[in-house]
């Protein structure tokens, strides 16, 4: 706190006692924060710590219930994003607001004065993007651009307003390591020009690497203000979580057994214009093995999950097999009956129905596999609510699911607790094959370590586990083998110890090296370009 006060005199933006209530819940409770000119300031915190609420108030999207915002020495009230931009605050949201059918320049023009001619915008955007190391063609269509390029549009759009402060919300969550490095260079350039950056993240290494100061939030309050370079990842995590995060424990040499799930030459055409086609995907996972599939979002992860789970069966029966049985044409419940369990990426509306109770959501994935214990009455299929509620209670106890009431709606649980329930729902069956897509996406650190430990324990007990994830830390924590998916193609799998971050980054970027000679020449050629 003393730290914050001493800098306040010369600060660009300072915030005193900022408070926002949603009903009776204080999302932000008396937040103090100050940002000096020309610094990269990190805002750290778990999901639900109040980071988004805080920056939405700074950008005029939400109005605080109490507290002051002081900008350049005078108290201001920011009524709308327009007013925030006029003050000199720019923001890059986590979810982009871009029209796919329009060009880069057209998208930028939408946020500017309509009287400025498009050609001038394109010219300025091109020169800005060059100056800041954000290569961008103003005339290309957004639909054709990668996520990293789309983010550049948002950054250029913010820079065109010539802001003194740029807020970036989890900017690297969608980037490859190489793309992230490039972004950091841009941030250093901005800093050198005397602009300030408020950098929201939960990636501790990044924050340590690029940020000058950090403010840590927890449960809507500031729990620490520090220089991240002086801290260790563990001490930062402690400020974020409030307790030491349990280190995930893993056996060093796992005992591998029979092949439990296998894909051979799995190809699936894209179902929609925005989907990715799977191209000749092959993988095998043995008993005791955790295969982690890394990759940047939107490279076919969802499609691979759909094909492996049987939500969308494939034409070639032999292309997927579970415990030696060809199941390509079998639906999801047929695969569950063979002992497989599935956890999709999206919790609300896919893995769970938000406005249904936990016990109903338990029945959701197990109506067929646990028919004997959950249903009675023969063909009538009468639901045994008491037996299901009992099992739901047991799962909540085992996975430490914090909830209000005995059997609340899924929507009332926080992301981490709901995810623990969804994973527990499958673990409770002791599946011999478990396929999880983004197991800890948007989940707080405590729940994430609980979930990762459970996945490792399951493999150690003799199951085969596939973890599809964008989080490289998570991948190295859980994986025995790692493969990388890029544009619908899956790399061969490598033992986790043999892969470096750089190597994964190259694979994510679509540069496949191969042991086969005919392809290595091509890969070299690709690298040379």
């Amino acid at each position, binding site marked *: 706190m003393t730290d914050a006060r001493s800098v306040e005199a010369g600060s660009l933006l300072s915030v005193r006692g900022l408070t926002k209530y*949603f*009903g009776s819940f204080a999302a932000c409770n008396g937040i103090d924060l100050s940002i000096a000119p020309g610094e990269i300031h990190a805002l750290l915190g778990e999901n639900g710590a109040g980071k988004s609420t805080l920056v939405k108030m700074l950008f*005029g999207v939400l*109005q605080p219930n109490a507290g002051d915002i002081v900008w350049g020495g005078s108290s201001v009230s920011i*009524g*709308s994003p*327009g007013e925030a931009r006029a003050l000199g605050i720019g923001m890059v949201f986590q979810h982009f607001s871009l029209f796919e059918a329009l060009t880069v320049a057209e998208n930028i023009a939408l946020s500017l004065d309509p009287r400025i001619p498009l050609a001038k915008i394109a010219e300025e955007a091109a020169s800005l993007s060059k100056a800041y190391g954000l290569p961008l063609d103003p005339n290309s269509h957004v639909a054709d651009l990668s996520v990293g390029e789309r983010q550049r549009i948002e950054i250029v759009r913010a820079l065109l307003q010539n802001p003194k402060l740029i807020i970036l919300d989890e900017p690297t969550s969608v980037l490859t390591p190489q793309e992230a490095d490039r972004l950091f260079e841009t941030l250093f350039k901005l800093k050198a020009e005397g602009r300030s950056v408020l950098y929201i993240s939960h990636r501790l290494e990044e924050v340590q690497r690029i940020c000058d100061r950090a403010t840590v939030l927890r449960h809507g309050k500031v729990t620490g203000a520090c220089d991240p370079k002086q801290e260790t990842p563990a001490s930062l995590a402690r400020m974020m979580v409030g307790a030491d995060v349990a280190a995930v424990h893993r056996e060093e040499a796992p005992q591998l057994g029979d092949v439990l799930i296998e894909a051979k030459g799995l190809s699936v055409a894209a179902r929609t214009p925005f989907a990715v086609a799977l191209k000749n995907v092959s993988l095998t996972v043995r008993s005791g093995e955790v295969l982690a599939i890394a990759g940047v979002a939107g490279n076919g992860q969802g499609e691979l999950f759909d094909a492996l*789970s049987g*939500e969308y069966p494939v034409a070639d029966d032999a292309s997927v097999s579970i415990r030696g049985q060809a199941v390509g044409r079998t*639906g*999801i*419940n047929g695969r*569950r009956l063979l002992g497989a369990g*599935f956890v*999709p990426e*999206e919790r609300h*509306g*896919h*893995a*769970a*129905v*938000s*406005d*249904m109770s936990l016990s*109903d959501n338990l*029945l*959701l*994935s197990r*109506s*067929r596999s646990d028919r004997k214990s959950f*249903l009675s*009455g023969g063909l*009538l*299929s*009468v*639901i045994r609510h008491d037996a299901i509620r009992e099992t739901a209670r047991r799962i909540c106890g085992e996975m430490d699911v914090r909830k209000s009431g005995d059997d609340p709606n899924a929507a009332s649980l926080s992301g981490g607790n709901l995810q623990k329930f969804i994973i527990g729902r499958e673990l409770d069956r002791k599946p011999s094959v478990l396929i999880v897509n983004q197991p800890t996406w948007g989940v707080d650190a405590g729940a994430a370590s609980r979930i990762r430990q459970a996945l490792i324990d399951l493999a150690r007990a003799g199951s085969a586990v596939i973890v599809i994830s964008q989080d490289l830390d998570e991948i190295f924590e859980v994986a025995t083998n790692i493969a990388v998916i890029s544009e619908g193609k899956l790399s061969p799998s490598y033992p986790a110890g043999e892969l470096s971050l750089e190597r994964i980054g190259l694979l994510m970027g679509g540069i496949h090296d191969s042991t086969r000679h005919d392809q290595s020449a091509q890969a070299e050629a690709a690298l040379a370009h």
Partner: protein
Amino acid sequence: MRIELERRGSASPLFSVISPILSLLLTLVFGAILFWLLGKGPLSALYSFFIDPLTEVWSLHELAIKAGPLILIAVGLSVAYRSNNWNIGAEGQFTLGAITGSILPVLVPSWHSPLVLPLMMVMGMLGGALFAAIPALLKTRFNTNEILTSLMLVYIAQLFLDWLVRGPWRDPKGFNFPRSLDFSSDAVLPPLLDSGRAHASIIFALLAAVLIWFMMRYMLKGFEVTVLGRSERAGRFAGFSSRRMVWFSLMLSGALAGLAGISEVSGSIGHLQPSISPGYGFTAIIVAFLGRLNPLGIIASGFVLALTYLGGEAAQLSIGISDKVTRVFQGLILFFVLSCDTLILYRVRIIFGAGKTLAEGKH
């Protein structure tokens, strides 16, 4: 200035229960204003509209006759709506069920057997179900919108009936009136009691409501309906097929509408004629929503809407205003039900100028 609907954090459970009652009260208030503007005494007009029909035994029978088809159709519609399949064409399925159910008494009037009535009911259900299968086929095959296709099929069914009773099915001894020959006594649903005309359709309706209620509350099928209605993707994850649900929910609601149609023709009319329904299929949509898509709630709301039919007739006789007032009341009820439901889920914000919030529903 603009008006925005902002989603509430959670819906008040108290108001979810009160909402139908509140909307009925609002309907009464606006009905009173309507009568007053027409120069009638509001209270006495409301009395003759809503209370008078309940004071005599014969009109209670009429109430049951009107409530039967409304409940029967609405119960089927509630399943379709809960599964997110918007069958608006129950009036057409009602009409086609009446036609297919009447095949035996019209084409083989000389066949006398206790089997005739049950067969008629089954054929009526089949007809309604198959007619509702057309929008199901179009939706699953060509991804068409079932709201439009089912609604357009209503007019096809009505014109088909019109053509039948003026053409091939016209009673040769009927003095050229557009109607079929009268059903024989084996083909007529008998009155339940000696005191009036009420027949088995109300029994069918209550039975269907209880069975569907059981299915929705206790059976896996009901769970499947709810899950697919809330989220198709979660339903796919559960291994439920949304395509099969389109067929199931549309054909179930079609079958119940068809049963309502043949029961009405067999029990209340006794022959086919160009017009066999005062809009039951459309009014049942109001019944379904007023009953909160809950089969037991639909029993109550079915009687309320049946009363608006009787009230309209009574108002025409006793205070001399058009029986179109029935439609006005039905419209008022639907309007208030939907708006009360909306306000449970959303609060209204009036926003002046650019983004400044001056008035809010709460605080």
